[in-house]
């Protein structure tokens, strides 16, 4: 069989790429090896541990078990796309502040899963955070500080939103 190459178009962190991929190439390999976005990690390679979590078309997915060809036409957000102007965003900063990182290997996937959780549920309970991150394994932290970091990020977001709300009140149309 002659080697098939598949032309795809994919938008990663708001940047559009035209690529030719192999049939067996995964989205994870595409991100890491072709686009040099090595923040997304390969760990179990079978959709169990969540280290490879990215947001694809608005949904958290395991990039290790998605073919690059399947990602044709999709929009992908990776850990690199979360940062703002080269600085950690609120959620990333909350992980740093809470000490929610030890070896750090699970952290990018964990943060992407937390990002997805907070977008769908801005005020989660501890139980909802644990449920929301249950597809992501961490062997170091014991999860306690990770849950605390997500709570802190949710609180910071709420404060920022209410401040913005107060400031904009005078100009807000009736």
């Amino acid at each position, binding site marked *: 069989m002659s080697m098939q190459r598949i032309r795809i178009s994919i938008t990663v962190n708001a940047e559009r790429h035209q690529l030719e991929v192999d049939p067996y190439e995964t989205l994870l390999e595409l991100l890491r090896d072709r686009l040099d976005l090595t923040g997304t990690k390969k760990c179990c390679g079978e959709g169990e541990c969540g280290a490879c979590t990215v947001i694809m078309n608005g949904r958290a997915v395991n990039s290790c078990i998605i073919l690059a060809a*399947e990602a044709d036409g999709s929009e992908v957000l990776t850990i690199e796309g979360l940062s703002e102007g080269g600085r950690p965003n609120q959620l990333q900063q909350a992980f740093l502040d809470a000490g929610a990182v030890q070896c750090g290997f699970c952290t990018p996937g964990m943060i992407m899963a937390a990002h997805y959780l907070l977008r769908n549920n801005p005020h989660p309970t501890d139980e909802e955070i644990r449920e929301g991150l*249950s597809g992501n394994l961490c062997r170091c932290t014991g999860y306690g500080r990770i849950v605390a970091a997500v709570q802190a990020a949710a609180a910071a977001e709420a404060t920022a939103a209410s401040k913005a709300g107060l400031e904009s009140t005078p100009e807000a149309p009736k």
Partner: protein
Amino acid sequence: MKSFEYLRPHNLAEALEIMERYGAGARPLLGGTDLTVRIQKGQADPAAVVDLKGVGEIGESIDARGDTVTVGGRVVLSDLVRSDLMQTHYPALVEAASIVGSIQIRNRATLVGNICNASPAADTVPPLIAYAAEVTVAGLDEKGAPIRSRVPLEDFFLGPGETRCAPTELVLGVQLPLPSRPFGCAFGRLTRRRGVDLATINMACSIDAAGITTFAFGAVGPTVVAARDESGELAQPDLPESRREELLRSLVEKTSPISDVRSGEQYRRAMLLTIARRVLRQAFERRQYQSGGQTQGSKHYRGGFGE
């Protein structure tokens, strides 16, 4: 990963023509949460992977028409779990779907994929059987035109990984009848950990308007095992506990649990009865709720199970 041809048909006729051409060498791809892993591990070695996500005839919505709800083949489990329609009419299926894999997996994995993977431990299959689901299978007739047929899910499975969907055919979606009231259905599952784990045992139990109780037991046989009490006895609120145990034992006897990495055979046998009591009680209570809330009968029934 070994190489294969990646094909993306745009309609059903094209997809079926590919399936016909490659036969057993073709593997249909929806979410890929099982297939891609198997290919990577060398457990599957397809000549062609046929990505069906561009096939319009394989629906991506959940629709109610008349007394039937259809779940399209492209509907992923997280959309099924969020659907008001599913939550209202098929709570036990929603409970089962919400425990499959992880959030990341449910965002990709489809209901039809979970069915066609034909794992004896598939979580969605016992409730689907308890709700009397059917699948629509499409193939080509002698003239090469697509034809569709419906197969009750209870008759669909032949063994682990084997179904009545031939290698040249495709499953387009799932049909669920709207249950006549009062109807109650419950799902139960035994695992070591809640997330990202396969069931040691899973099962569903439904009691229909006529009082027929249907159990579907998973992970205790080569396929999900259905067992029925047609007499209506199990649905009676004042059935003596000893008789209920006798009936449950006779239903559970249809299973053939084995020892494997997740559990020993004896533990499975013991837990089958325990979980069966639980789901029966919950199905009964849900049915009772539909027929007008708590009654003397349901209190008595609950008492019979003191755990």
